[in-house]
């Protein structure tokens, strides 16, 4: 029940942040879906005892791959789906707890929470990197440049053979045989 409530929060939060980033209206629902999938993967692997950082990595990887697939299907930049989609993965509560512990001068707890938050944030970054790296080669038509300008003129053979060191005293115009 509480998970369902959270999933609803993820959907609403991601879609609303997508509006804040001015994502085109036709992509709003898909962006929310990408966010929901990433978060669901993170929660699911967390239930199996995978550490939070690895969960964040897998979640971000899911968001990134979903975004790239949607980008190709809907002919839009992948950013449109990925940027709102990673917001639910952010370890906000941990970072905040670290800050509170720091203010209470409980440095041991602060270090513990901050490390976990930082590693989870790094996991998101690495997940995004992996997703982008995996999909960069896929189905992306490269721009074909067809130059209209003529190729550089070929040097006449004779002139090339002339490239010998000329004596300094010789008149340079006197090259014709």
């Amino acid at each position, binding site marked *: 029940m509480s998970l369902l409530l959270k999933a609803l929060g993820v959907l609403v939060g991601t879609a609303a942040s997508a509006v*804040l980033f001015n994502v085109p209206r036709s992509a709003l629902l898909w962006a929310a879906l990408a966010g929901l999938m990433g978060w669901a993967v993170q929660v699911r692997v967390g239930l199996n005892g995978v550490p939070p950082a690895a969960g964040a990595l897998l979640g971000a990887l899911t968001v990134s791959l979903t975004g790239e697939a949607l980008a190709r299907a809907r002919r839009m930049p992948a950013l449109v789906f990925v*940027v709102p989609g990673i917001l639910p993965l952010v370890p906000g509560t941990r970072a905040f707890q670290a800050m509170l512990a720091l203010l209470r001068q409980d440095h041991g707890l602060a270090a513990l929470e901050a490390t976990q938050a930082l590693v989870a944030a790094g996991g998101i970054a690495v997940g995004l990197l992996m997703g982008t790296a995996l999909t960069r080669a896929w189905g992306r038509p490269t721009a074909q440049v067809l130059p209209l300008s003529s190729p550089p003129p070929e040097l006449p053979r004779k002139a090339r053979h002339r490239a010998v060191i000329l004596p300094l005293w010789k008149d340079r115009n006197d090259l014709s045989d």
Partner: protein
Amino acid sequence: MDTLPDRASLRDVARVCLDAAKVLIASGAETARVEETVTRIGAACGVEVESIATPTGITVSVGGNRPVTRLARVRVRTIDMSKVAAVNGLSRSLEAGEISLRTAGNELCRLLQSPGPNLGTRSRRRMFLAQSLATSGFALLVGGGPRELVPALLLGLLARLIDERVASLPPFLAVFLNALAVSLCAGLSRHVLPEVNVDILIVAGVIPLLPGLALTNAARDLMAGELIAGVARGADSILTAAALAGGVCLGVSLMALHP
């Protein structure tokens, strides 16, 4: 068209390329996309285009032997995914030969001059609604219940109001002030509604301020081989996160002074 392209048409291509790049950079597209779009526009017109884009500007060189080279500096950056998608579609249809260079240029001029998402009353109302919905959605995510929903809605409205006021300040300061105000107001709400969980409100209130775009762009640019832009955007996201942390820290410690 088998002769050398004349200077005037090269200048036209350069202008369109530069305008497209300006719109993309100012709306928060990744650098690799900017350079790719510029190359595509050039290819659609049959000329070679070389470009170097950074998060703060672009240099475009159009034509092979005697190129026309122009550069533009981009000072104001916002997040506007609609414009990124629009330029993306424009370069696609230019490449497919569906529109002419002149049409594309006019459309880009319109995009350059159109106001950002924060202006205009209707879109302004939409932004307010979106931020309050986002805050309450994230309040549910970080463990809030029905009790936190209404305070989170109000907190989102307030964060948006402050966002509008501080938009002209340097980005670092703007994020700092916004985080400070959000944490102060969340703390004050405890006096009105004693049973509300303040921590949940603060965390939900600052999630929309997080540098998600900078982080995503850093990853994408680094993987595309855009080392300078990738590292610069990584630094940008770290700086924004630090400003956010500083603002929340100050707000929470101020509230602790006045329990």
